[in-house]
């Protein structure tokens, strides 16, 4: 193949039809930006949901009246359950210290009114699969070591086993919904991107149909005519999507900064680093986006020619 010839043909025509080139680059840029933002947002939400799910814990309060044997039995029960990822014992003193830390100066005022440490010891249990929170929690209801008076402290409590059932469910439900919506949006914008790019390419080819006719009459094979167009599409797609990638990076970074500086950081929302590798995008999102743009451009250039290449 005469690479240098095709390359100079492609570059020459990009330069000559620079208005069209600009339009095509802009089209790719806009489509890929929308697509990329949808993808990044989806990934971020996913990350958020995962970190939220990992934070769901079950508090199993231990009755002050429980015997050491009963506590040991409870501990063995926890250790024997395969659904549990990790369990942390929080003593009465630790629970009190945590309360003091949370309430600050007000703590002494409240505590002075109480005869002794009102906080029960507990096990903070983390499950492996967030869907099992409920079934795991149920296992501790009615256990003799478990305090069943503390539910008054937690409106969300089920007896003395506490887990943020409703809140977590609602949060996960919302995230799930947004995720689904994002996938719909991603698909729609992906299709729109393909249509926009192919329309632009078709327009630029229509403007050059005479040129193509002449090439055919001189005896150029279809691929000989097609290569410069494919290369043009490739370059246009690449430039447009690299620009889109850069702007998405800036967008993501801005949001990341904003979340970090705001109270939202309480949720320790992790921002998906778009240039990193991940399971979904083996090359990393930005390189994948750039590649996608380039491939779309090439295909657009190659396919749009078809009707002019019929002999």
């Amino acid at each position: 193949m005469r690479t240098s010839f095709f390359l100079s043909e492609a570059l020459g025509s990009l330069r000559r039809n620079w208005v069209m080139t600009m339009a095509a680059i802009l089209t790719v840029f806009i489509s890929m930006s929308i697509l990329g933002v949808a993808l990044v947002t989806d990934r971020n939400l996913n990350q958020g949901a995962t970190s939220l799910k990992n934070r769901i814990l079950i508090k199993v309060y231990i009755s002050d009246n429980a015997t050491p044997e009963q506590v040991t039995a409870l501990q063995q029960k926890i250790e024997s359950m395969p659904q549990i990822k990790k369990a942390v014992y929080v003593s009465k003193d630790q629970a009190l210290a945590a309360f003091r830390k949370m309430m600050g100066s007000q703590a002494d005022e409240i505590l002075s009114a109480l005869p002794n440490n009102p906080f029960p010891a507990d096990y903070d249990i983390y499950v492996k699969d967030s869907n099992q929170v409920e079934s795991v929690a149920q296992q501790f209801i009615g256990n003799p070591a478990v305090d069943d008076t503390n539910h008054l402290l937690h409106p969300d409590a089920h007896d003395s086993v506490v887990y943020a059932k409703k809140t977590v469910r609602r949060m996960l439900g919302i995230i799930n919904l947004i995720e689904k919506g994002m996938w719909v949006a991603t698909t729609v914008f992906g299709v729109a991107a393909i249509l926009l790019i192919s329309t632009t390419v078709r327009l630029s080819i229509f403007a050059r149909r005479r040129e193509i006719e002449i090439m055919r009459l001189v005896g150029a094979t279809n691929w000989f005519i097609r290569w410069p167009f494919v290369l043009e599409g490739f370059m246009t797609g690449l430039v447009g999507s690299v620009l889109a990638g850069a702007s998405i990076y800036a967008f993501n970074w801005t949001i990341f900064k904003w979340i970090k500086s705001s109270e939202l950081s309480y949720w320790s929302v992790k921002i998906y680093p778009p240039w990193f590798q991940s399971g979904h995008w083996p090359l990393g999102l930005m390189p994948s986006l750039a590649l996608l743009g380039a491939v779309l451009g090439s295909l657009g250039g190659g396919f749009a020619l078809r009707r002019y290449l019929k002999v």
Partner: protein
Amino acid sequence: MIVFENVSKIYEPDVVGLQDFTWHVPKGEFVFLVGPSGSGKTTLIKLVLKELEPTEGRILVAGRNLSTLRRSKVPFLRRNIGCVFQDFKLLPNKTVWENVAYALEVVGEHRRSIRRKVPEIVNLVGLADKANSLPHEISGGEQQRVSVARAFVNHPPLLLADEPTGNIDPETSIGLMQLLLRINRTGTTVVVATHDRDMVNRMRRRVIQLEGGRMVRDEHRGSYDEAPTEVTGAD
């Protein structure tokens, strides 16, 4: 070089392009196709290039049967046929030199042989000083000579010209015809479709007259018009 056997071309719905046309052009001949607009001259040229498919009949060009020629092989057929058109059909963004070189690039000619052949042919058509001009910077006659140069740079066995003098003035036309004649002398078969009465009468070559898609005259050393008694080939 060209054989037509009972070729008909009917355009949808029922416009006759060419009807029951039988024709034989031996290698090395110089043929004029004459006749009014719509008589089938351009249809004939398009059939030879396999730009159109005949409705009926058989066409052989340079020994190839066009009806069995695969589409993917059509470019290779066209490389054996140089083409000159009334509207020149030059690539507007390429210089004279590049336009001629394009025909060689298409064939996959080496860079070195392109650098050798292009100046040769550009000199032959007398445009050495315009090699770096763009088509719109030169006159119509000069553009037509570029198109002849492009058609001939591969030294094809067959050269087709469709109204080559249609857009250029009579004096320039003479130069162009002489150029075509010179090309014919190298052994290339030349077929010229034309309205140019002076040209045909001056050259006295084989003349084929078309009317309504039929051949009404096939005369060697003929002129543009001829007495009806000498008409041959009509049915």
